[in-house]
């Protein structure tokens, strides 16, 4: 099932002579239960792609469809709600607040989320990710890997259909890359999420269900065994 679809996305920065086209006619689909890898070097436009897919900014033209609705036309408040309820972000910085314990990272989501989040679901999630013993710890008391698991649990907590991850393996050694790759794949399969990982790290290719390449603002799908 298609969880998110980008149709003919163009994104320009600047105007007139200083206009730069960052994305050019990009079309993309991510499916539930699949890990989609978007590869590209620095400056290729992959971060812009992720921010448009995540509703953080609007494309110059084209559509971003979630549940058949074009979220690029939504108001800022509506896009806030989409990000809160339907999209989970895993950022390079692990998006954890330093002054909140692991338990409080989820309590914050509870307070803002309109729907009822289940404590049982959280407990199960923490157990499955092996971080249930860390609930009273603060981010600076955790290892990088533990922080990443908490960030993933945080992204999954609201049960979003889509998980967007930005360079989750930046500065990790090969062993850690394998662990993260497995985790992302499990996230897609076990929780039936459409996981989109934007990275320049080719070591993640082994875990992908689909691979896309962005180069100079143009996206192409690559064969898995290339």
């Amino acid at each position, binding site marked *: 099932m298609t969880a998110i679809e980008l149709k003919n996305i163009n994104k320009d920065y600047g105007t007139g002579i200083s206009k730069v086209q960052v994305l050019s006619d990009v079309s993309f689909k991510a499916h539930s239960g699949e890990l989609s890898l978007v590869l590209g070097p620095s400056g290729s436009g992959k971060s812009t792609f992720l*921010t448009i897919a995540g509703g953080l900014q609007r494309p110059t033209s084209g559509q971003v469809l979630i549940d058949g609705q074009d979220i690029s036309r939504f108001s800022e408040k509506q896009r*806030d*709600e989409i*990000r809160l309820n339907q999209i989970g972000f895993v*950022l390079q910085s692990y998006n954890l607040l330093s*002054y909140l314990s692991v338990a409080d990272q989820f309590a914050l989501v509870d307070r803002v989320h309109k729907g009822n989040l289940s404590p049982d679901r959280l407990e199960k999630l923490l157990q499955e990710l092996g971080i249930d013993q860390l609930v009273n710890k603060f981010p600076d008391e955790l290892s990088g890997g533990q922080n990443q698991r908490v960030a993933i649990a945080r992204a999954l907590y609201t049960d979003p259909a889509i998980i967007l991850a*930005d360079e989750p393996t930046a500065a990790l050694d090969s062993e850690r890359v394998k662990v993260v790759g497995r985790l992302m794949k499990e996230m897609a399969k076990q929780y039936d999420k459409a996981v989109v990982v934007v990275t320049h790290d080719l070591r993640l290719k082994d875990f992908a269900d689909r691979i896309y390449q962005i180069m100079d603002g143009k996206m192409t799908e690559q064969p898995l065994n290339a």
Partner: protein
Amino acid sequence: MFLAVKEIRHEKLRYGLIISMIVLIGYLMFMLMGMMLGLANENTAAIDSWDAKSVVLNKNSNISLSQSLIAKQDLPNLNGHQALVGQTPAVIERAKGATDKQTIQFVGLDSSQFIYQKKMKLSSGHKPHGKNQVVLDEGLKSKGYRLGDQITLNGSTQKYRVVGFAKDAKLNIASIVYGNLTTWQTLKGTGDQFAASGIFSDQKQTVKNKNLKQYSIGTFIEKLPGYAAQNMTFEFMIAFLMVISLIVITVFLYILTMQKIPNYAVLRAQGIPAAYLIGATIGQAVILMVSGTLGALLLMIVSKAAMPSSVPMLINWPLTGILSLALVVLGVAGSLLPVRMISRIDPLDAMR
């Protein structure tokens, strides 16, 4: 409030220092106000205790009780709401035993009139009977004066017995010695041609004599020597302090919020509404200001208890409450600048 409380609890040193700063600013303001009120009270405590609404003085006295003399032939028929007051500065000294000389305000009263009858509040002893008895301000106890002491006034040979101590017996920041009008005439050196310095009443008075003029108590108090200038000085000090504290608190909250922008951008990216983050920032300002103000109040109460009684300081709780509220409101108003900054956070910053 959730984010605000969690952050304060986690960053105890940082927020402890900020609260300490607010405590010190609040403490300074409360102490200044307490001393202003204390000094103001020492100017007017006696007049306030008489519940006077108006005073009739000699029209050439420039609204000064010390300079006013009411001649006997100008004296109107007095009703039950009027009382003669003869006032003059004097120096008292114990007739026997060592006691420092004290400059006081002698107030002569007529024992048949309302101030003597109803308004003289004694903390010990009894009211003066006859011309050789006096009642002292209870503040003079700390100077060594006791019931039964013999005192002299202005170094004369005439001795007066201390028969009581009165509460709220202060005028022009000096202790009052209550006696009768004959003693006042002697001290003033006027003989019996002058009846008193002024006529106080707990009502409005009508004056028909062209040598006399009626003033409201408010006008009379404003004209007390140094009273208006002193109060205005304190009021300006407190006002300037409030403006400075508003600026300092705003700067602190601004810097704090600036430091949190990357975190807030991440939360915005995750869909946390800006309104929630604004609420957290304002909530944090309220917590800081209320904690700081409560700390300042506590410190003021402790200081007041530890201070010697000779330091004029008065805690007026309604006014202190208003000042506390103003401090909290101004502090929260100071958080509105960072609020503007939060409303403009771009969630895209989380990706940079």
